[in-house]
């Protein structure tokens, strides 16, 4: 180290300094390019250090953020198996903070609340049954809020609005479910993935069931019917679409007396309605069976707790 003359040291430092001055704007612009293409990592919050621990935090600083997030998720499996959903949520919250642009973590964090924790709390603390619907609705609302938060980081991902759409269409679970809201979320998802025509069709099906939006849905359903033969290529003509047209007809005719089904469909309408009625009754029977089983389980749990 000392065999080099000071003059050379100065030269080398000068090269590094001038090189640094030259590359600084390049680096800055390149960082901006990475951010623009959503390739750069999001800025770290230093409070993560306490949550992750020293070694994981160093790994995160060293560029192994994705691996650390995977390890946090794996570490979380035990909490999930123990049905410790507070811990599960904390772990997934950490994952979403580490990798906010990974859809999987937002989806799973919401899923854990709206499905796994929801089912768990159905049978938890039965001594206060009045509290249960409130807890469960909170879980659904939290899940939807998580998905909306995820959309801020992943504005181009169709799966998050689609997950919200399914929750808004779930009248068994969600007290705030709304066909109209669901149809709008499906529409938003379809706009992000226009080649997924089924998202568009789900938008129309849900719009057709939304009270007050029958006249909006009617031309869309007709357009789908006329888009080509059923089950062919890019055609939106589907058996579900036909069923919605037939079901919607009386409501539309009340507002537009001239409205009519295409002749070929009108001929099949009674059969379609009968099949639809049969399907609905089967669903109702299944739901009743499930409700009865649920009550049995609840009573058994209450007895055990007493």
């Amino acid at each position, binding site marked *: 180290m000392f065999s080099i003359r000071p003059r050379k040291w100065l030269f080398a430092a000068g090269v590094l300094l001038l090189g640094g001055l030259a590359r600084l704007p390049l680096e800055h612009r390149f960082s901006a390019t990475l951010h623009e293409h959503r390739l750069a990592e999001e800025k770290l919050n230093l409070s993560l250090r306490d949550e992750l621990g020293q070694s994981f935090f160093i790994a995160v600083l060293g560029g192994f953020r994705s*691996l650390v997030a995977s390890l946090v998720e794996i570490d979380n499996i035990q909490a999930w198996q123990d049905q410790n959903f507070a811990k599960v949520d904390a772990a997934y919250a950490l994952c979403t903070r580490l990798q906010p642009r990974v859809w999987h973590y937002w989806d799973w964090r919401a899923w854990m609340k709206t499905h796994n924790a929801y089912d768990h709390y159905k049978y938890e603390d039965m001594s206060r049954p009045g509290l249960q619907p409130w807890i469960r609705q909170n879980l659904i609302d939290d899940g939807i809020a998580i998905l909306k938060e995820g959309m801020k980081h992943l504005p181009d991902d169709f799966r998050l609005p689609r997950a919200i759409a399914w929750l808004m269409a779930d009248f068994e679970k969600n007290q705030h479910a709304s066909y109209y809201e669901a149809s709008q979320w499906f529409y938003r998802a379809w706009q992000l993935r226009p080649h997924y025509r089924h998202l568009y069709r789900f938008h129309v099906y849900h719009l057709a069931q939304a009270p007050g939006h029958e006249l909006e849905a009617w031309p869309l359903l007709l357009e789908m019917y006329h888009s080509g033969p059923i089950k062919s290529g890019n055609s939106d003509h589907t058996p579900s679409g036909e069923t919605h047209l037939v079901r919607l007809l009386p409501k539309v005719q009340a507002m537009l007396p001239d409205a009519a089904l295409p002749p070929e469909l009108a001929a099949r309408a009674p059969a379609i309605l009968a099949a639809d009625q049969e399907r609905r009754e089967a669903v109702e029977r299944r739901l009743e069976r499930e409700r009865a089983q649920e009550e049995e389980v609840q009573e058994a749990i209450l007895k055990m707790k007493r």
Partner: protein
Amino acid sequence: MSAPASSPPPARRHQRFSLLRILTLAGGTFTQLVRMKVFYFMALFAIAIIAASFAFADLQTDGQLKLLKDVSLASMSLFSMLFAIAGTALLIPRDIEDRTLYTILCKPVPRLEYLLGKLLGMVFLIFISLVLMNLLFSAVLYLKEQAVLSQLISVLEQRQFPSREALEANIADVQERMAGQGLTWSLQNGILAIFLKATVLTGVTLFVSTFASSTIFTIMTSLAIMVIGQAQSIARDVLMGPDASLVPRIIAGAVSLFFPDFKNFDITDAVIAGATVPAVVMGKMIGLTVVYLTIHLMAAYILFSDKEL
């Protein structure tokens, strides 16, 4: 009658700069490193990714593929950085110890060519290592992706859906999801970014080794530069931001000017998540790598040209 004496071949003029000499030195460096049995690490890498591909089958399928990519790319990154630091730190001291350096430099080989040859040999070794790791990783990921996809489709086909349309929508969704999570060109770009980062680190370590008094000093200093380089962007933000006072700005300026920004190469998280990397981004990253290499090589040459051996 004796044959007329053939005239001696005309003496080749010594070239001040010869690519052939650099390539010869690079080849020698590569052979020297291979003889150190560095490729044994491949066994460890294979165990790591095969274990990752079978481990945690409880995870959702996306999670399994993500874990496999996480472990594999993290291993590639770690191995390449270790190669870059440890391998490069050994080069000059080993040549001095073996007296190879004197044999080379007593010939008309400029010291810049010697440094370039060492650098290229090391970079070539990292490249070959990454290619081997990438081949193994790609094969395992492809097989895993196919297994997961067929498993998911058969599960979907056994489930009851309200309509055929709903089943087809679910299958299309799964196929697209798997296509984004499996083997993609973006993943290859991520691996290229790992290679470029290791190349810059090789340049930095070579620069340190030109003035270092021991191998351990070179390794520790290069590791420190790597860690500081991971946070260089924070210093740059302070330097270019409007709010900082004088002292933090001077410190941030020193860090920004003297240390490379290694965070600019960390795109692996994004590609693991399924992001696509435009060619222009990779082009700029390669350009930035060339700038770093040029700066560090120039500084290394200035010090090495004056070094008493």
